[in-house]
């Protein structure tokens, strides 16, 4: 069985982004870009399933600019077997990416598609569920444990208040939460090996997908600043302030 894993190139999670002064977006010129952390967890999970003998091939897909090849190389250094880049300079929104992934799923016929639950740039949390809907497949979002046996996936999900477990028939879509696994560090030999792995490049048109954005960003602004308050000397002052000044206790 094959797995398709989607990875997104995003601003590194350690970078504090700045809003551009003309309010057209955030300034991402010359900032470090990395694989979306949730997608790294998705790649790791797929590679572990392959190491357990559940999967026979892990194919990673990225949609976006040429530089997404770097993200694919990182995924292949973790252990993915080959890569697919859907190359475009157009802004891609979740529905468009879900359609691209659906077209690739039709070609590749995977048993599982694994994605991060959300990307840390647009924070949408949509693509996996949209793909599941378009393909008419079952979905298990926010996974913290995945087991595959007898043509089913048993997935434990993080829900409000605790955990729930779903049994999905395959093919299915799984999106990852933080606690699913801890991605391995990539080693230099594996980085070298990844350079030799195959990447196929498509354009959205090749896949017959119209990726025109459906949502217009009118402006991007700084969030309201919360100003620092005061430091109190001791617990007694704190209690006094909470009771008499803030009146919250």
């Amino acid at each position, binding site marked *: 069985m094959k797995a398709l894993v989607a990875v997104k190139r995003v601003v590194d999670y350690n970078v504090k982004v700045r809003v551009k002064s003309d309010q057209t977006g955030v300034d991402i010129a010359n900032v470090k870009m990395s694989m979306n952390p949730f997608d790294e967890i998705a790649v790791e999970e797929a590679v572990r399933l392959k190491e357990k003998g559940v999967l026979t091939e892990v194919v990673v897909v990225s949609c976006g600019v040429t530089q997404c090849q770097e993200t694919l190389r990182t995924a292949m250094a973790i252990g993915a077997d080959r890569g697919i880049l859907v190359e475009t300079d157009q802004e891609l929104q979740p529905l468009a990416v879900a359609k691209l992934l659906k077209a690739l799923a039709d070609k590749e016929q995977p048993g599982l598609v694994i994605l991060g639950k959300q990307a840390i740039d647009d924070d949408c949390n949509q693509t996996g569920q949209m793909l599941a809907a378009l393909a008419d497949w079952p979905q298990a979002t926010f996974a913290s444990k995945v087991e595959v046996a007898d043509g089913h996936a048993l997935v434990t999900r993080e829900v409000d208040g605790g955990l729930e477990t779903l049994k999905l028939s395959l093919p299915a879509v799984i999106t990852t939460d933080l606690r699913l696994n801890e991605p391995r560090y990539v080693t230099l030999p594996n980085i070298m090996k990844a350079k030799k792995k195959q990447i196929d490049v498509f354009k959205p048109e090749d896949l017959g997908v119209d990726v025109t954005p459906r949502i217009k*960003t009118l402006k*991007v602004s700084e969030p309201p600043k919360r100003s620092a*308050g005061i*430091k109190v000397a001791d617990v007694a002052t704190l209690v006094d302030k909470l009771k008499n000044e803030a009146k919250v206790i």
Partner: protein
Amino acid sequence: MASLVIAEHDNQNLKPATLNTVTAALACGGDVHVLVAGKDASAAAQAASQIAGVSKVLHAESDLFAHGLAEHMAAQVLALASVYSHILFAATASGKNMAPRVAAKLDVAQVSDITRVDSPDTFERPIYAGNAMATVQATDATKVITVRTTGFDAAALGGSAAIEVIPAVTADAKSQFTGSEIAKNDRPELTAAKVIVSGGRALGSAEKFNEVITPLADKLGAALGASRAAVDAGYAPNDWQVGQTGKIVAPQLYVACGISGAIQHLAGMKDSKVIVAINKDPEAPIFSVADYGLEADLFVAVPELVAALG
């Protein structure tokens, strides 16, 4: 123009998030209908009919709705979708799970996590973990939206909407619910709590977390929260996590104990009315958002605070 709000409930009671979602729906203009899809959910439908501003409650019953699986819930919503201009879900684990399924089937974009309604097609939403706010315009005919509950006040009660029982529509079952482990406790739910006491990595262990933080939460009648660092270290369960990748909260009082204040954490709690930070590091970023900062060892200060609260 009318909006459909998908109620979140446990078949008996409505989850408070539904009330905030109704407020967002009212801001979109037009009639607001609420869908209660569940199993033996008459009580929840009854509760929904009492939300002020709601003109109709649609109540669908099926065994398959018992656990709120996305496939079935989306099928039910899609069966109703054609007459609505806006379809709104709370941006909770459950709403986030369902909404994109509905949007994709309708071939429309989804606007996630809105914090403000500027006009029926223009919304504000945080991006980059709340480090920027985007104002976006949805161009599709149907707006599928998830609502960040802290961005909207809870709708008032006192309404008396008609309840219409509608036929249930479900999907081919390709997924099955096999079980859940929901932590049972008497504390208020994190996202609905008026007071939250949160602990960070400085606690050092799950035992210390419980020993130091729990008595303060008991004293204040508070919900318990934790930073991602504390959750990753195993000191607290994941569903206590406050932050960009956990819960977004905005209580009246938020007490952060031994939390340094990573951007990720601040994104989840900076809309709290009053923030108290207890940390021994004077440079901790949490002090930059705290109304009251106490520079002290939490192992001394927190028990002292419990004692001072009598």
